[in-house]
């Protein structure tokens, strides 16, 4: 009798698979493992902003490598969320040059507005607040990143406006139309 626990089948969309195949073609034959990071980015965009163990197993299957080879990479690089996140992840830069231009105040403002602390998700599920290290935006701090977009030179008013816009935003994937 089959004793295995039923696993949720992970399926990439056709658009995502086309991107995955394109990346794999960039590396020499037998070096397809090089495509792990690009594929993890695609996976995170595809599956709600985080990568689950099941998704990592699927990536390993696609690349024909061991699951541990994907786990060790996904846990090393800080961009990959290993737990479920809100609709938008706010990644606020907190390093020295941004601190000089007010990142401490920005973080405090966002915590108050969202009613949650850094590392938590707002009660309405719209925002996860994260701090990150330098995003190469030191001349335009304080700033934060949401997916591929930088929001720069933020003050309380422009941060509030950004939150409103994001709430109303339909999240699209890079390979979809109107991205």
């Amino acid at each position, binding site marked *: 009798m089959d004793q295995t626990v039923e696993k949720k089948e992970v399926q990439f969309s056709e658009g995502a698979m086309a991107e995955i195949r394109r990346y794999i073609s960039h590396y020499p034959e037998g070096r397809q493992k090089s495509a792990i990071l690009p594929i993890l980015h695609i996976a995170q965009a595809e599956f709600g902003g985080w990568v689950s163990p099941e998704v990592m197993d699927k990536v390993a299957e696609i690349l024909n490598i061991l699951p541990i080879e994907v786990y060790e*990479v996904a846990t090393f690089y800080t961009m990959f969320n290993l737990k479920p996140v809100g609709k938008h992840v706010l990644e606020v830069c907190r390093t020295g040059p941004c601190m000089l231009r007010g990142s401490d105040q920005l973080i405090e403002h966002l915590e108050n507005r969202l009613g949650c602390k850094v590392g938590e998700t707002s009660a309405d599920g719209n925002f996860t607040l994260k701090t990150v290290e330098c995003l190469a935006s030191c001349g335009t701090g304080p700033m934060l990143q949401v997916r591929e977009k930088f929001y720069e030179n933020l003050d309380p008013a422009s941060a509030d406006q950004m939150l409103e816009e994001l709430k109303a935003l339909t999240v699209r994937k890079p390979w979809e139309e109107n991205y």
Partner: protein
Amino acid sequence: MGRKLLTEHINVEGIQSFDVYRKHGGYASVEKALKTMTPEEVVEEVKASGLRGRGGAGFPTGMKWSFLAKPEGKPRYLVCNADESEPGTFKDRYLMEKLPHLLIEGMITSSYALGCRTSYIYIRGELLYVLRILEKAIAEAYANGFLGENILGSGYSLDLHVHPGGGAYICGEETALLESLEGKRGNPRNKPPFPAVWGLYGCPTVVNNVESIATVPWIVTNTGAEYAKFGVGRSAGTKLISAGGNINKPGVYEIELGVPVEEFIYSDEYCGGIWKGRDMKAVIAGGSSVPILPKELILKTAAGEDRLMTYESLSDGGFATGTMLGSGGFFVMDDHTCIVRHTWTLARFYHHESCGQCSPCREGTGWMEKVLHRIEYGHGHMHDIDLLVSVAKQIEGNTICPLGDAAAWPVAAAVRHFREEFEWHVKHPQAATAPGAVFNKAESVLA
């Protein structure tokens, strides 16, 4: 107004597109190199230019190229290091976003010089939007016959791909970058062998910074001898400086090496002076890893000479009274800046970014962060200050890669030049932790 070699056309409308870029002289170096020069001649021009690696280390680019091993039957790779993550540095992002074709042109000409058939641009994962700009530009270059098979009928073929990282400062170290490009954790390799012999997939590899590669087209088009006429002595040419912190005009400035630091900070052509009418307290001149200098020492050397924006002048006096040009991440602190808090954010950064391979760095960066945190939050002891120096000393030189040094130097330098401020935090914990409180030398004498 200084001469712009890289950014002359950066504000031209539509310069991101192939056609406009080409109209402004773009891809001339590819035509010249592939049609009229041997690969060795291109290497010689870059050597003659005196160009030094613009990522931070300042190693001569032409010399690095000449170390590349050329064994029979093995491919060679050029990998562009676009993992710009050094706090205070944002020039490569600016260059790639505004002038994607300049980097691509540089990659083609450089790959030809090195004999590469496939090359990669490794860009930090946070810059996926720039990756898309580059990919679009690469597609245009293919469509116009500047990439792919038999470029311009020369018989030379090249494929160029962009590869995103995943958020790890350490991947800016070239061997960690190669590990990452192979799909592994970004742990730096022990050297030797150097990448020139054993690089990507075990093949000879050159890793160069974005700005270095973007400088190659000008050098090849106009000759290395012409390039060497700019700048001062061994600091040849121009350099992109990322100006940030408490200044009126933050941004990226292309300067001819040799501009006086004082002019760079105060003139309207560059930083435009200190914001909010305040006074300057300190500067970190070359990215967060280089020693911080107080106002007196950044404007003048210990010998009283004007400090210039060159590799040599900024390092005049060694670490006792000097610093480094590094990556050109230049950020200025006004007199309202708490040096202890700022240093703590940098220590936290290095602790966060240590790959964990070497004990002195993995453990030492954590200790420095904790000790600085306790001083900043009013729980420090006098002996903590020397403890910081001691930990920094024991990291320095004891790790596989330079991240250890990069973590140790800013802490050691902050204590070296601002010890009184650390002592004030320990002696007056209540005053030091009050909101907005900042150490003031003149007042502390009264206290």
